């Protein structure tokens, strides 16, 4: 009983702590850039703060809504997602930033449907897998084919934006959730092989993806060219040392670090808050993941368990990939750090996902009572 309320507390406050830290670090990382570009040092921080409020409200709302009601939304949300992703690609509707069309602009706000797609996929798979029962899932035509047919169109729409990172994330979620749902391992291996075959030309086709792969293997060789980003990240971590240079005192964010307030925010944390700060962030994420897994284990039904697992994996894998990239363990891949990185849609979706987790947790409690 006590441990369950601890789980809820961690799930509620862990993401909020990270979000708060994110807002502070976004200000630290972006204030100079923002004052140069927008003549407002708090430009990014303020926007993130508003999204944090929206996300928190969404989270509080969803944790009170019985998650079973989401079942009914699985297909409509999938269809909505598909529609939005098509809209993004329609010229004149989608907004292009940095060569990629990922955003829908609604007044002053911009919305990234691909972030929404992750959650939609999780809901769809949790619903579909739990509905069919574990025996039927073993069959290819029931356990694999429908899911592939529904998820792959989303992937295609996202990869053409292009957003390789989110596509990869969705594919990983698909495979993992099917595995958890009981799909035969040999189908998944076959799928994995197919996926790898699809990834190779996608990587080779775009020169920069190949370059990133090669750079990853030896960044120092191209320290001023393509290795520049990751080396600047190393330098930031190195400069931070054990205790960091102090909040706001980092220098790497001064345009040396690529995207210091988005994908590389952990490097700013590493520089300013040091190894201690990084380890605290890692610890909070680990606790969130652990608690999320506990929620999955105690869910009252398979749908809840699958939902919880999907959400935990979405957050956990994204965290690991982001940290792996920033620390130079993985090739450079645009993937924000959940809750912390700047990015409105991502923050709102992640907080709402946690709200769902809390809802699942709450109902597990009720059942236990």
């Amino acid at each position, binding site marked *: 009983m006590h441990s369950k309320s601890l789980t809820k507390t961690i799930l509620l406050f862990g993401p909020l702590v990270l979000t708060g830290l994110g807002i502070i670090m976004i200000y630290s990382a972006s204030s*100079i850039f923002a004052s140069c570009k927008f003549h407002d040092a708090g430009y990014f921080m303020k926007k993130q703060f508003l999204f944090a409020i929206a996300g928190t409200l969404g989270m509080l709302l969803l944790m009170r809504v019985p998650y079973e009601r989401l079942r009914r939304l699985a297909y409509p949300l999938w269809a909505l997602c598909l529609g939005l992703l098509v809209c993004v690609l329609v010229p004149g509707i989608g907004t292009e930033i940095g060569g990629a069309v990922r955003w829908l602009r609604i007044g002053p706000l911009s919305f990234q449907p691909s972030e929404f797609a992750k959650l939609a996929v999780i809901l769809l798979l949790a619903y579909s897998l739990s509905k069919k029962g574990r025996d039927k899932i073993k069959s290819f035509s029931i356990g694999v084919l429908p899911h592939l047919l529904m998820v792959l169109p989303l992937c295609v729409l996202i990869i053409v934006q292009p957003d390789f990172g989110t596509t990869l994330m969705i594919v990983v979620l698909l495979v993992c959730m099917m595995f958890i749902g009981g799909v035969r391992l040999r189908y998944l291996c076959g799928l994995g092989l197919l996926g790898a075959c699809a990834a190779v030309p996608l990587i080779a086709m775009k020169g920069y993806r190949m370059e990133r792969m090669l750079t990853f293997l030896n960044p120092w060789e191209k320290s*001023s*060219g393509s290795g520049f980003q990751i080396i600047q990240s190393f330098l930031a971590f190195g400069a931070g040392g054990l205790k960091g240079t102090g909040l706001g005192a980092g220098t790497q964010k*001064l345009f040396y670090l690529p995207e210091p307030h988005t994908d590389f925010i952990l490097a700013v944390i590493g520089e300013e808050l040091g190894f201690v700060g990084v380890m605290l962030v890692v610890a909070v994420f680990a606790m969130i*993941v652990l608690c999320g897994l506990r929620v999955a284990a105690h869910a009252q039904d398979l749908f809840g368990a699958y939902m919880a697992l999907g959400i935990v994996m979405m957050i956990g894998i994204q965290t690991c990939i982001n940290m792996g990239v920033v*620390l130079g363990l993985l090739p450079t891949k645009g993937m924000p750090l959940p809750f912390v990185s700047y990015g409105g849609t991502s923050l709102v979706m992640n907080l709402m996902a946690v709200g769902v987790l809390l809802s699942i947790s709450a109902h597990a409690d009720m059942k236990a009572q």
Partner: protein
Amino acid sequence: MVTVQARTELKNSIRLCALLFAVLFAVIGVRAWFLQILRSPDLTRTLERQYKTSVLLSPKRGTIYDRNGNELAISVQVESLFARPHMISDPAGLSQRLAGILNMEPDAIADKLREEKPFVWIARKITQQQAQAVRALEEQGLEFAKESKRTYPNGELAGQVIGFTGLDSEGLEGLEFRMNETLRGTPQRVAASRDARGRHLFSEGFCSSAQDDGSDIYLTIDKTIQYIAEKEMQATVAATGAKSGIAVVMDPWNGDVLAMAVVPLFDPNNYSQYGRDMWRNRAIADVLEPGSTFKIFVVAASLAEKIITPEDTFFCENGTFRIGGRTISDVHPYGWLDVSGIIKHSSNIGVSKISKHLGTPLFCDYIGRFGFARPTGIELPAEASGYMPPSERLSEHTRSVMAFGHSISVTPLQLAQAYSAIANGGVLIQPKVVKSTRTSDGETRAYQPDAQGQRVIDHASAQILTEMMQTVVEQGGTGVKAAVPGFGVAGKTGTARKIYNGTYSHNRLVASFAGFCPVDNPRLTVVVIVDEPRTMTYGGQSAAPAFSRIAQQALNYLNVAPRVQIAAGEAPSTIHDQGPPAAGRAG
């Protein structure tokens, strides 16, 4: 609702997930420890190298003025374009657009944009229009730096004297090179943080004391006289088909170089379009055998040492004389000539005989005292010292030919310096080209105190020699064409064969005239050198008229009143008789 089997399978899956994440987070932690603890010291060092760029704040380079405050070299602020290649996404397209604006090859720009450097210059010192056009592209990774560009408003005027600066505003030639530190000022090294866009962030370690701008320099050069000398030397070179022409105009009393013309001219604004050869200030950097202009120093020494008197006569052997086993000859055969006649007619044999009376040790001593075979010490780079054979190894023949300016090499400026010593009554004064400097806070300082000078010969001997030298421009002298209407001229012609492939050439000559005027109170020493004239090969034919025209215009410009208003058609040869002797001016 959940079967027991499903629950078990689920639990296993969840355990697997937990294990997987535990491993992943552990790896992340270890990696963070590796970077932040283990590698921290050397990563921090690399980082500091990147940030603490020592920035050289280049102050404004000083202006070069002529003696009257006319600008000869000025600095203006212009913009230079650089790129940060890692921020540029489309080098090929961008280089195409830049090429149109900058008039450059697209491939050359594309190569620069692809360089693996954080910073690369695209085009230095571009025009304002170009800079605006590039700004209008609003391209990421293209930025500007302010630099100062040197311009020479008078173009070719005194190009070899002034020299020029390179792209980094460091003097490369001439006074720009020699006086670089004065002109440049004190650049300040500042350890400044830099962000990746190259902006300096002076928040830490910024040294705020103001840097010293460069000092302005005032030259002794007179823009007008320089122009006169250059124009006349260009005309002379054109008329004679010579390879080059050199003229040095000097104030004999204080050593101020008023003009130093080297033709062909070059324009320091576009120095790269001229050969290195044309940058050289041949008035100080080139040595030549002076020929007969050198004879007067033998006479000067012999007069000063009282070895000869003006009344002494020498037999000039009717044009051919064997000495030291070799023959020397005169252009025209002469019999008996007095010392004045030897100078007037430029007899090689006569002056050889005088040098024999003078003797080798004194001869060499006086050559040295007149400033030959060592640099004058003028504030110009790459000054040659000239060459004189060591006295202990001097054969009789060598001494004899040295008496008329062979087997010895001098610079045109050395010749002007030595002639000035005779003009001012016997004192050798170091020539100078920099008159004063003015620091950035307005303090003017004489660059070098007026040199006291070294007395070389007594005043009376200089006086006698001057009178002899006047006969050169008189009727029957070799330098009649050097006469300046209204002013007395003392001078000497020279024609020397150049050594070519180890022997004296018959068709490569150096024609010269050196002299000063007005004789009664000399204002100008002028040395004119015509290098390899094709026609009018004698000094009296090509160099003497140039001397006359330069001296006449310069005296006119300086408002020097002629002693006599001569009627048209009157022979200029009578003029010198009208002037009183220049008494009491020797320093």
